[in-house]
């Protein structure tokens, strides 16, 4: 996988974004941790004249952990678009594909350099974070396990997201489409299940109960990367429980790395700029988007016009299908035009 020339090329191509990874880590969990300790926790102890427990010490910075992970998730998607989507808008893509390297190797270097920078940034971050704690008056609260869990969970979730974003880049023709579709599909399983359950309720009056207590819903949550990104902090808190849900991001890496390789090898540069690069997928994508919008607009219209959803089924069906058919048709027309457009970004 290592090829000096390719690493040089990819590094140069995404250098600013790559170096933002350690900077973001350091800002949130090094500098900000020190700020919280010296400007918040120490005055707090002095003011209330009581010692913080180890648990409260760590939970005081969960907000930082959450913000760091959200920022890293955004950066890692930006990195994936720098490697694939942005490459499509200029002659860089021609140059990359003219090099004497297989597309498989090029893709693996793109993946490898991102994961290496992410892992190195997180590792350095944990070391700096640990040093800040050890040099503070709270050094006796230092818990190495917390840092190991944070590193492990974050790297697994963000590698899953990065692999998925790269895969989306291999089937889309522009950076814009890659970023937007990555974001949408990161929440898609839960979103789709919600609109599907509403469809079942309206048509068959079958209530699946409270969504959060539904086991299928939990599976969908595990499959939605968005919830992993925002939920790592809870994972670090309850590692024993969270470990059972890690299959989602692990599956994303295991599934989308080979799939990304497969699609990248078959990329047709003549379709660069199109939303979807593969002609075979264009019809499926158009139909899929129209179906989702039909279901969502149907649900929106029903909720808008029938405040009491427990009313008779017929009262729900009319606004539902008005929104479903109208929304679906409008989406089909719009998508028909959008699919022909060549995006410049």
């Amino acid at each position, binding site marked *: 996988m290592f090829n000096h020339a390719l690493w040089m090329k990819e590094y140069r191509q995404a250098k600013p974004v790559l170096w933002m990874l350690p900077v973001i880590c350091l800002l949130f969990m090094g500098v900000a941790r020190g700020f919280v300790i010296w400007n918040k926790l120490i005055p707090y102890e002095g003011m209330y004249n009581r010692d913080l427990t180890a648990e409260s010490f760590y939970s005081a910075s969960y907000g930082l952990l959450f913000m760091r992970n959200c920022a890293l998730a955004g950066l890692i998607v930006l990195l994936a678009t720098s490697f694939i989507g942005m490459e499509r808008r200029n002659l860089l893509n021609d140059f990359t594909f003219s090099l004497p390297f297989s597309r498989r190797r090029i893709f693996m270097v793109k993946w490898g350099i991102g994961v290496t920078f992410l892992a190195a940034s997180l590792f350095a971050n944990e070391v700096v974070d640990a040093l800040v704690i050890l040099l503070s008056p709270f050094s006796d609260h230092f818990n190495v396990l917390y840092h190991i869990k944070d590193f492990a969970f974050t790297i697994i979730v963000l590698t899953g997201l990065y692999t998925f974003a790269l895969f989306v880049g291999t089937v889309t023709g522009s950076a814009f489409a890659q970023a937007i579709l990555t974001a949408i599909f990161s929440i898609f399983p839960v979103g789709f299940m919600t609109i599907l359950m509403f469809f079942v309720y309206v048509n068959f009056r079958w209530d699946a109960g409270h969504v959060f207590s539904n086991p299928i819903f939990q599976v969908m949550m595990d499959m939605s990367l968005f919830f992993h990104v925002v939920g790592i902090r809870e994972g670090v808190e309850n590692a024993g429980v969270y470990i059972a849900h890690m299959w989602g991001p692990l599956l994303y890496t295991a599934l989308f790395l080979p799939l990304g390789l497969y699609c990248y090898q078959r990329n*047709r540069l003549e379709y660069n700029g199109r939303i979807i690069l593969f002609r075979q997928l264009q019809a499926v994508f158009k139909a899929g988007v129209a179906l989702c919008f039909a279901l969502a607009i149907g649900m929106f219209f029903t909720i808008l016009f029938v405040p009491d959803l427990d009313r008779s089924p017929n009262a729900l069906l009319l606004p539902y299908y008005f929104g479903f058919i109208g929304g679906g048709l409008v989406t089909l027309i719009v998508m028909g035009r959008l699919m022909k457009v060549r995006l410049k970004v």
Partner: protein
Amino acid sequence: MLSVKQLSKEMDGRPTLRDISFEVGRSSITGLLGRNGAGKTTLLRTITGILDPEDGCVEFEGKDVHRTPECRHNFVYVPDSTEVFVGYTPDEWARFYAAIYPNFDMEYYKHLMERFDLPRQKKVKHFSKGMKALTAMVVAFSTRASLILLDEPTNGLDPIVKKQVLAYLVEEVAESGTSLIISSHHLEEIERIADTVIWLKEGRIEEVTVLERLKDTLHKLQVVFKDEAPSHLFNRSNVKVISKVGRVYTVLIEEEGTDTLRLFEEEDPLLFEAMPIRLEDLFDFKLGGERHV
């Protein structure tokens, strides 16, 4: 060395290249000519492996370029824009190529940069168009690759730099044995340096011309007849009138022998003068003669 075999390519469902076949040997310069949209750049991009063909294949020294990309270590594509390297200095560009192409000759690169008086430490984005094009060629030739594909290499260059570049290309081929495939809009440039010209029309090869043999197969005449011009001669499929000024006809005749020439002579014209053949004449004859290539 390079074999293009029955290559076909579609763009947006429209055939752009149709059944293209030709071969390029060692130490040769092959010119690709055709009007805008004829498929010149698409052909170069497909040969290089940037685009995948629908049918056919490109073999370099017996290996399929698309299936074994490693064989591209020995050939370099120079596009008509250096946009990719604007953030590099020529030295960084050279170091990068040295990491890719195993035969990269750093000493030769330095020598050429000095010869063309090109700065090595200045960012390429600050170069003039001519300097950018020259740097791209210097770096490409320093790879010591056996085949270099140049897309419109003299586009936008002033006449002095253009002359310099063309002389340099011929010198490289003569000295190092490199082969070139050059797509160009400029007939006179290709005529000056190429051995073989491939004429593309609507994605097909219209004609492959070996320039040395051109004078044996195409004849250009100026004729003036005493009376009305004999239409049976001008209606022949191998005869084309390219201009008529008063009673003076300039005619192109395509044939291996001299049968048609003799027919013209038999009409006992007042003026019957053979003129030197230019590539432009062949272009007139084959592709309809529009100047906008």
